[in-house]
């Protein structure tokens, strides 16, 4: 549980920490689009440099990121493996039944791995440097246009911030219940797939029960304080767009244009 860093906040006061959450959200979306525009290695190199520079500006060490990747490794390897073994191509190096390794497969797998890594790095950077509530505020702001089509923006934002707020709480609860069940002889780490899946039951049921308890307590607290949703709620945290945010946005625009031009010439 301690190892997964995606979704955690890393307290700090770096340049990246201070950027407007709206900007960071937009840049993350933009970055994912750029990743898929990029089709050649020089473009990936450029994006890689951007990622490393952003991590550097956040003041969080690169090795911390790399360690945080470890829990995601299975997912990455699985996807890369799929690409590697199931892409059919002209130059086949190895074949066994329906599995084959071809030149195209190798290249595709490498692309997928790099895309995965870059996207994970960037989104991890977002969550590490932005408090969950800031993210929720940013999303609420960015979703505002959807009000036109009667999308319940405020309610969704409230749900989001509540959900985010309780992630650490549920993490703690998970650790606690895991410990209690390990003390009663449950082994979460050994045994076959079925045994391990069965071992999750004593964890998931108590976790579900406590989530329901938390939710009902929170509801009671909100009702007793007269919470009402909808229009006209004033806000406690106000997002502030600074000149540096504009500069970074402009720089990202330049990067986007640059990347598209680069792709054209390659």
């Amino acid at each position, binding site marked *: 549980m301690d190892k997964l860093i995606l979704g955690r906040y890393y307290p700090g006061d770096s340049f990246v920490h201070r950027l407007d959450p709206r900007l960071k959200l937009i840049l993350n979306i933009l970055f994912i689009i750029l990743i898929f525009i990029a089709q050649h290695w020089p473009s990936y190199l450029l994006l890689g440099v951007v990622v490393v520079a952003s991590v550097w500006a956040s003041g*969080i060490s690169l090795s911390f990121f790399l360690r945080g990747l470890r829990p995601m490794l299975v997912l990455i390897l699985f996807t890369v493996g799929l690409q590697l073994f199931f892409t059919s191509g002209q130059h086949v190096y190895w074949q066994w039944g329906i599995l084959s390794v071809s030149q195209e497969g190798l290249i595709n797998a490498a692309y997928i791995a790099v895309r995965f890594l870059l996207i994970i790095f960037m989104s991890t950077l977002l969550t590490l440097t932005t408090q969950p509530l800031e993210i929720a505020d940013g999303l609420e702001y960015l979703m505002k246009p959807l009000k036109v089509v009667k999308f319940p923006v405020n309610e969704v934002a409230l749900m989001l911030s509540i959900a985010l707020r309780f992630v650490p709480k549920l993490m703690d*609860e998970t650790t606690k*219940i895991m*410990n*209690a069940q390990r*003390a*009663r*002889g449950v082994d979460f780490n050994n045994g076959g797939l079925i045994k391990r899946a069965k071992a999750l039951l*004593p964890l998931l049921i*108590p976790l579900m029960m406590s989530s329901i308890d938390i939710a009902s307590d929170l509801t009671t607290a909100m009702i007793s304080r007269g919470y009402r949703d909808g229009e006209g709620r004033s806000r406690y945290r106000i997002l502030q767009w600074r000149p540096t945010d504009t500069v970074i946005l402009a720089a990202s625009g330049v990067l986007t244009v640059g990347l598209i031009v680069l792709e054209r010439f390659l």
Partner: protein
Amino acid sequence: MDITFKQVSYTYQANSPLATPGLRDVDLHFASGSYNAIIGQTGSGKSTLVQHLNGLLIPTAGQVIVGQQVITPLTKNKALHDLRRQVGLVFQFPESQLFEETVLKDVAFAPKNFGKTPAEATAIAQQALRLVGIGPELEAKMPFDLSGGQMRRVAIAGVLAMEPEVLVLDEPTAGLDPVGREEMMQLFARIQQERQLTVILVTHQMDDVVRYADQVVVMEQGHPLKVGSPREIFADPTWLAAHNLELPSTGQLVARLQQQGFEFTTLPLTVPELLAQLTPQLRQVPVDG
């Protein structure tokens, strides 16, 4: 079972920027069959300490010796299964660990994990339930249908059903009413006597410390600050106050009586001791009227 901590240190999330010290240089000994209390402020490392007793946490330096088993930073998880059976750990708010369809099944869960047959496990579970005062009529109920106090008892029965030789209790009475607390503490004292258990109790209730503990460990910032009998620990009210520790209620009463001019040669910690020193002085007070 004898328990010894030798130069034990533990760091949370070691080797990461978020590393925080949990324990440092802990040297402790808990004698077999003794009743030990661990006190200290929130965040002083009490819970971290007790999680070393059954290998939920492995020390980052030093060694923990429980009976025959030595736990070092290199100990593998697999080697701890037997230890987990011998050391029963009751967490804070243990009712949150209940998950089975029936009370009986939940209590039988641990013995089954530790290799008992279903029939044996059921028998042990029934015994453990009787021990904590849960009757047969509740066995088939869903644990979530019970009252808070009953759930707590069932959860504790679930740990006792492991038939541990060491019982670790992390604030077992938190959130209970005074009567429930009293009953629970007496229950633990009885079980300790009957089964010759080594008990380690983490608590904020100084009255329980005075009443039950043979040895008291005061933790501060991950380090045992003072170890001794309750009498030694509570002898110095100024020292206690300096470390934000409360006196037991008799001690608090004594402090107020002293302000009123009563004199005490030694600090009484129990009601009989208090009375022995107080009654002669009361007789000297002239009665008005």
